[in-house]
């Protein structure tokens, strides 16, 4: 039997990168402490802040919403139905709505087809963009606009350590100074953008999945049917292969970048922003990328 590092009871989860194991209660304590450390260390949120949480119905976003509510934050969920009528999208909304109902949390559900007359597969077909490219642009734009329109102080996103390390690996492989300059657990609210925060950046996917399971969160376990061949997953697999032989490398890669690397890229993305002629959101161009994508799709 593996013993809990903290209380010596029966462990339910080993964390090789911390050379530790935890029982259920001590693990939930560990997880909350990591989130608190992220929030306080990066000055992400203050208790009076109204936070709009991007929730897909998956483990990361529901774990994030759960822990923020548990820590006392005023956290409202925001879910986008990206593919109306499709089983995976319908189930994702069901998981999200059930989570909100069980905990008495407020959920804003937004149907892309109803609001914009497109689903993600339709946008992909009409514009030639990759599925994940179109989906990411929709999500970033719509939640940023909703947060600004509704007066939220911050948007919280469930990106975990694996997500951030995979994005960093991709940016480093191309030495993309513009994206490296923006890679941070906190994106400041400025020029009409609401602040974006990633309170799970200190925790791996397995750690957020374990938290969600141990908290009894009924999340969407199935993988998005459109994600096959996604580059980010290949980067994650490469990092996992390194992590297998050297536990802690993934965290060291990302945290060392935050401590020593990102400062060298500051200012690389500086551009003057103005209001999009179509939607009013900040953009360096006359029309923002999202509105240009819709224009292209409508042609």
């Amino acid at each position, binding site marked *: 039997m593996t013993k809990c590092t903290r209380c010596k009871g029966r*462990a339910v989860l080993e964390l090789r990168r911390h050379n530790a194991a935890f029982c259920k209660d001590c693990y939930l304590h560990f997880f909350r402490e990591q989130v608190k450390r992220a929030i306080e260390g990066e000055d992400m949120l203050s208790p009076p802040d109204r936070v709009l949480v991007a929730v897909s119905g*998956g483990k990361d976003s529901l774990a994030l919403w759960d822990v923020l509510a548990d820590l006392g934050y005023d956290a409202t969920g925001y879910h986008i139905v990206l593919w109306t009528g499709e089983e995976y999208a319908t189930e994702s909304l069901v998981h999200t709505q059930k989570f909100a109902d069980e905990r008495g949390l407020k959920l804003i559900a937004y149907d892309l087809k109803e609001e914009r007359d497109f689903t993600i597969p339709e946008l992909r077909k009409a514009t030639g963009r990759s599925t994940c490219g179109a989906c990411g642009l929709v999500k970033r734009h719509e939640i940023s606009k909703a947060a600004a329109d509704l007066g939220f102080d911050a948007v919280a996103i469930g990106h975990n350590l694996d997500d951030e390390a995979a994005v960093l690996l991709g940016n480093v492989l191309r030495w993309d100074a513009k994206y490296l300059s923006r890679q941070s657990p906190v994106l400041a609210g400025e020029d009409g953008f609401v602040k974006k925060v990633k309170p799970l950046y200190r925790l791996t996917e397995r750690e957020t999945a374990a938290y969600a399971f141990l908290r009894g969160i009924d999340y969407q*376990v199935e993988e998005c049917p459109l994600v096959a061949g996604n580059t980010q997953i290949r980067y994650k697999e490469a990092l996992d292969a390194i992590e297998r032989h050297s536990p802690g490398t993934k965290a060291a890669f990302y945290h060392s970048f935050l401590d020593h690397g990102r400062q060298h890229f500051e200012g690389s993305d500086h551009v003057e922003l103005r209001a999009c002629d179509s939607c009013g959101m900040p953009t360096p161009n006359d029309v923002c990328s999202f509105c240009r994508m819709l224009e292209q799709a409508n042609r």
Partner: protein
Amino acid sequence: MAHIVLRNPRRELDVDGVKQVKVILRDLDIDPETVLVIRGEDLLTREDYVNAEDTIEIRPVISGGAS
């Protein structure tokens, strides 16, 4: 025989006798750091044993896509 349920894609199989989680994962060529091993309401560590009458789920934790 212990019953094993794997996800993404979903498939099921049976294994003989009492086995340690790490042996089951090794035999299935699964990296323990990429899954949760679930028995009922409980998580199992790689040192735990799966009994012949148990049903366990091996649930992948990796996800990806648009950010």
